[in-house]
């Protein structure tokens, strides 16, 4: 059976239940139950119209649970008012769901979990595995999140920026498990791009596709990190790159620049270079300038210093770096790289070792320790 199809139906089925008057939290539970039922029943007995099947079963589950509930009398009114199935604005419902699950009253981790479950159709167990927390913890996180948004009216206009932030987090901070969170983030962003016409949604989708295209080359078989300049570009996914570039160009043509489009433009320039040496660093610096104007993020200015180091030489890069606070994450790693390019191996080795001590994850720490070791070996 097609689990991807099943999961893609989740938001519109949930939207229909909510439109019929089910409260969001109960509807969401009912849709989860229906998904589990579908996984059990469909392989042997596939439905003729999957979506109708899901709506029917989810609605039945919802009624069962509300009947069993202490508040049954009040809710049974809904049964009498059960609407006849008819045409439904699925796209609008999907969009409202994205807004609700990324509502600004939710913490980022809650918004991520709720989005993956209610929009993505993942089970609590899958989400828990992906984020390396116990299933009971994730179940609590999701039910608290549902309580938090329970007062939000389903038809209120939402904020696209918060939705994009959540999808970016799913893509960028996904861990492991049997669910590919990066692919899931792309699927959800693509679905969002189908529901709303917005250049930054397109920009984020392009950004994800362009980075996803390099994924297979980012780590060596032994798990160690491979820096961009050393990646085997022949193994980049050209189809994904082409799609990302096309989406980005269409978005940029509308002349409403935002940070995701600018980030995607940088990724596209890297993807476009046949070799690392042929990278158009001058244009990349220009995009970092745009990005700095749009976000004023110190991380952007740190990356900009690297790009300046490539475009105008390591001294220029170090000059740009000197304007930044050295407590910034990865500051020491950038300084080490620029000093190495400048030929000062002793300083570079010392800074790489310092950067390794401050590394935010094991793969980066090992990589930076290796860089220090490589330079120390050369100096012996």
């Amino acid at each position, binding site marked *: 059976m097609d689990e991807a199809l099943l999961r893609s139906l989740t938001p519109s089925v949930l939207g229909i239940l909510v439109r019929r008057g089910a409260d969001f939290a109960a509807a969401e539970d009912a849709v989860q139950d229906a998904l589990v039922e579908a996984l059990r029943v469909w392989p042997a007995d596939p439905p003729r119209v999957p979506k109708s099947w899901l709506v029917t079963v989810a609605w039945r589950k919802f009624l069962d649970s509300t009947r069993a509930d202490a508040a049954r009398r009040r809710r049974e009114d809904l049964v009498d008012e059960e609407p006849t199935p008819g045409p439904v604005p699925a796209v609008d419902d999907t969009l409202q769901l994205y807004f609700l699950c990324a509502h600004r009253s939710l913490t980022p981790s809650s918004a991520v979990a709720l989005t993956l479950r209610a929009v993505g159709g993942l089970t609590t167990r899958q989400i828990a595995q992906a984020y390396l927390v116990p299933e009971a913890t994730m179940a609590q996180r999701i039910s608290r999140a549902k309580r938090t948004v329970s007062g939000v009216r389903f038809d209120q206009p939402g904020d696209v920026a918060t939705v994009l932030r959540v999808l970016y987090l799913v893509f960028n901070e996904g861990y492991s498990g049997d669910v590919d969170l990066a692919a899931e983030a792309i699927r959800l962003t693509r679905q969002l791009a189908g529901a709303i016409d917005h250049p930054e949604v397109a920009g984020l989708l392009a950004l994800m596709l362009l980075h996803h295209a390099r994924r297979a080359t980012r780590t060596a078989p032994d798990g160690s990190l491979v820096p961009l300049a050393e990646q085997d570009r022949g193994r980049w996914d050209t189809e994904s790159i082409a799609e990302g570039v096309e989406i980005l160009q269409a978005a940029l043509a509308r002349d409403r620049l935002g940070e995701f489009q600018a980030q995607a433009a940088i990724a596209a320039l890297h993807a476009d270079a046949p070799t690392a040496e042929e990278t158009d660093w001058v244009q990349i610096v220009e995009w970092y300038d745009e990005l700095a104007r749009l976000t004023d993020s110190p991380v952007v200015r740190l990356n900009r210093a690297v790009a300046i180091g490539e475009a105008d030489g390591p001294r220029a890069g170090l000059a740009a770096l000197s304007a930044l606070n050295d407590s910034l994450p990865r500051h020491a790693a950038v300084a080490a790289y620029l000093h190495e390019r400048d030929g000062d191996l002793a300083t570079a*080795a010392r800074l790489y*070792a310092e950067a*390794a*001590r401050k*590394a*935010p994850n094991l793969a980066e720490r*090992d990589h930076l320790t290796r860089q220090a*070791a490589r330079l120390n070996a050369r100096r012996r």
Partner: protein
Amino acid sequence: MAKYLLLKHYRGAPAPVNDVPMDQWTPEEISAHVQYMNDFAARLEKTGEFVDGQALAPEGTFVRYDGEGRPPVTDGPFAETKDLIAGWMVIDVDSYERAVELAGELSAAPGAGGKPIHEWLEVRPFLAAPPTITE
């Protein structure tokens, strides 16, 4: 079955035999070390003895309650804390002897010159739930 914590220290343990800082190894020696650690964890998963393994960043902060309505007091990070935990592995094994045997294997991870580090690891038993039958 009993659970044990294998603790690795940045500081605070006696000096290992092969005591060379990692940034003075060759990149290949680092790769061999990382591979050994990964293989060790993978092997314990296969034998059904692995529970969890985590590494910690070296810099931490001390925090304590400072009374009603006041924000917590923080102190540190301290450059010279005498004991500093680098990471741990939790194993679930049949005996203390098995825990010691595995800690010994982990301590044999290769370091500079490809030779075992002979690093001191601390083995600490978990305080488990009381058994049902006590008499």
